[in-house]
């Protein structure tokens, strides 16, 4: 009986069946459930699984295990690969002994990311083979195969699912999880010590492996050819299904080359296909990775085939594909009428519904207090990556910049250098603090740049689904790292702590930090109500409420709703009490 698995669960299962020993990851949408699954099922199967402090460390740990001949996997989102890039680029030259698979999930759209970068392009840049699954089933199969391929080539292999595979469920027929094979062990050898002379030699080897990988892929079951007509489609990853469905709806039978191995492209397979069609449309989400390689092959082999795709505007290079975009491109390619969609005119204007901080989110108190403290001063608030990025939205509007993990601390220092009359406050989450906040903190102290670092400590990595981080000890053998001790050891002199749901206390701390002469660090700690038990509930005393709507306008808590001239508190209230602290007539009280 097949099981209904999310793509990420299928990937984790594939890794377990492939006999991994070590699995590492840093949370990131849409990849997080891979590690969540390995955490659940890995230990029972003899797998060491950990949430690492960041992606670079995760890759290095997995690589270390692979140096000893064990199979290992590191999983992350596409921007995590940027953090790990230093390790990954060099690792390609050094190679591995045990199979090393990097699962890097892309997020076209983007749904929950800062960029729409295409990991297939990164793989090509790093000279590493990449597999592009079209569905959870294939993600499962590809993950298993990736370990064999990694050992055949002696290279790390990247598996690149996208959001619609990671967060899609499908029935998957599973194999068995075999017992772990013994680890061959690390053998001391100069091949593990990267030096310019070694790199020069290894670069030749690495380039040779590109050809080998391309040949390896020629007979791969993940690539599939169907010859039906002189008009053909070449497609990679999930787009394959959009093409087949559009073909069905349009009632056309096309020649098709499905690519599961976009880099290195299996040249023979592609050239043979191009020889048997007159025109092709290339359908791939994100960057024209396959398209550019196909155009080059066609030119090199002097093939008289017409190639349509992104380069001539048939398909966009930005955004996420869907069945409708692909169907329209296919219809245009075939010069036929696309299937119509029902027309229902007169749609009313709909409310925008952007994401928001949850009801009772402690970040709301942090932002509110710092905005208050900043009222009579010139202040820039730099932000970072996490739920708290949502503090940029009205009514809080408490974030002036957000760039990438940890960047708030660095940007603040640069701004402080050129705007000495402005106080710089850098908000950073607890998990982000450990991930990328330590080097910029050390820098600020060392250079004595007077920024205020505010660690929004909700005791979890909330945005990605509430994973742990080094500031907590969730396992029995973990040691909790105390943020204030870290700051003290780094030489921060002003270290303050408050509960962000206590506005008076938080405001006092904010004022104190803003008045401090050197770098200061404030820890605003309160657990995220999505993991901690709600404290209770609040209600509005209708007779006392004057209908000023201050609570709604200033806090924007989604549990607060205008009710005629009064305010209603919805059942989603978690009892944080912030609204009652700012009500000018004390009309909001705790339900006892």
């Amino acid at each position: 009986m097949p099981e209904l698995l999310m793509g990420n669960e299928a990937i984790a299962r594939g890794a377990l069946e492939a006999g991994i020993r070590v699995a590492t990851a840093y949370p990131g949408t849409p990849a997080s459930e891979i590690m969540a699954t390995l955490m659940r099922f890995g230990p029972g199967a003899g797998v060491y699984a950990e949430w690492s402090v960041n992606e670079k460390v995760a890759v290095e740990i997995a690589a270390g295990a692979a140096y000893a001949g064990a199979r290992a996997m590191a999983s992350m989102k596409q921007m995590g690969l940027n953090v790990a890039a230093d390790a990954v680029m060099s690792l390609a030259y050094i190679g591995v002994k045990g199979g090393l698979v990097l699962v890097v999930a892309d997020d076209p759209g983007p749904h929950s990311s800062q960029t729409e970068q295409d990991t297939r392009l990164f793989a090509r840049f790093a000279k590493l083979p990449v597999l592009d699954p079209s569905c959870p089933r294939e993600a499962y199969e590809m993950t298993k195969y990736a370990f064999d391929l990694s050992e055949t080539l002696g290279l790390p292999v990247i598996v690149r699912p996208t959001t619609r595979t990671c967060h899609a469920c499908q029935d998957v027929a599973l194999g068995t999880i075999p017992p772990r094979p013994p680890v061959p062990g690390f053998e001391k050898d100069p091949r593990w010590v990267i030096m310019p002379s070694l790199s020069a030699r290894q670069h030749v080897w690495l380039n040779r492996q590109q050809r080998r990988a391309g040949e390896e892929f020629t007979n791969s079951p993940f690539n599939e050819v169907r010859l039906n007509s002189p008009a053909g489609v070449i497609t990679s990853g999930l787009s394959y299904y959009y093409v087949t469905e559009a073909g069905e709806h349009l009632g056309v039978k096309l020649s098709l080359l499905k690519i599961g191995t976009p880099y290195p492209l299996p040249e023979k397979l592609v050239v043979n296909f191009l020889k048997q069609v007159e025109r092709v449309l290339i359908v791939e989400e994100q960057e024209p990775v396959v398209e550019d390689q196909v155009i080059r092959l066609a030119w090199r082999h002097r093939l008289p085939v017409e190639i349509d795709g992104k380069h001539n505007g048939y398909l966009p290079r930005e955004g996420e594909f869907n069945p409708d975009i692909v169907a329209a491109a296919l219809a245009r390619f075939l010069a036929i009428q696309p299937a119509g969609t029902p027309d229902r005119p007169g749609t009313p204007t709909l409310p925008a519904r952007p994401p928001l901080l949850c009801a009772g989110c402690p970040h709301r108190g942090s932002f509110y207090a710092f905005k208050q403290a900043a009222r009579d001063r010139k202040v820039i608030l730099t932000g970072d990556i996490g739920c708290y990025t949502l503090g940029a939205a009205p009514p809080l509007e408490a974030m002036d910049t957000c760039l990438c993990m940890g960047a708030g601390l660095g940007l603040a220092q640069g701004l402080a250098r050129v705007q000495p009359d402005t106080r710089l406050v850098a908000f950073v989450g607890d998990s982000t603090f450990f991930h990328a906040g330590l080097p910029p903190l050390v820098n600020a102290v060392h250079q004595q740049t007077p920024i205020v670092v505010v660690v929004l400590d909700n005791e979890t990595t909330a945005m990605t689904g509430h994973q742990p981080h080094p500031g907590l000890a969730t396992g029995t053998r973990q040691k909790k790292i105390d943020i204030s001790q870290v700051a003290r050891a780094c030489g921060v002199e002003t270290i303050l702590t408050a509960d962000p749901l206590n506005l008076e206390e938080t405001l006092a701390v904010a004022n104190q930090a803003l008045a401090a002469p050197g770098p200061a660090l404030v820890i605003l700690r309160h657990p995220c109500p999505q993991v901690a038990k709600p404290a209770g509930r609040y209600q509005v005393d209708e007779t006392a409420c004057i209908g000023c709507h201050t609570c709604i306008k200033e806090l924007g808590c989604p549990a607060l709703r205008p009710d005629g001239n009064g305010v209603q508190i919805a059942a989603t209230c978690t009892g944080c009490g912030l609204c009652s602290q700012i009500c000018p007539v004390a009309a909001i009280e705790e339900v006892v």
Partner: protein
Amino acid sequence: MDILIAGVGGQGIILASRAIGAAALKTGLQVRTAETIGMAQREGSVVSHVRLGPTTTGPLIPRGRADILLALEPAEACRYLGYLKPDGRALISTTPVVPVMASLGATPYPLDDILGYLRNNIAGCHFLAAPDLACQAGSHRALNMVMLGALTNLDLPFPAETLLAAALKLLPDRVHEVNRRAFQLGKQALEV
């Protein structure tokens, strides 16, 4: 059968789509779903695509092809109505979740227009005050179960009990009673 589930982050849409998927699988059907997980889950607009039956298609339903629209919020029903096929059916919770921006007056929320538009543009349109039934069952969080219960009246390819069992399997034991009640209330609300 293609079912589109729409609503607001936090309403339990992922559980609803998983439960339908698991029930279908139990019945021997193939399943593809696509869910909204990530930033939008924080009070944003979320949608799940659920595709059942032998299929060679991807996880996303093309516009104008869903057989059923299951909406846990009226404005979200409107937002995703384009996915419903011309003779498709819809099951819509009529209680609005007014976004903070609308509370602040920065964006409109014309509830009556929305409900009227839905009624006039969907052949088989069923309205339900689902949150009331959820509270009646014992928890506002059981809204998704009310909707699943009601959905079983729309000729699903599996019996109601299979769906209920699949949904309960995804929930901790201590909330089974409330959710079972919510499911039954939703089912009865639409029974003719």
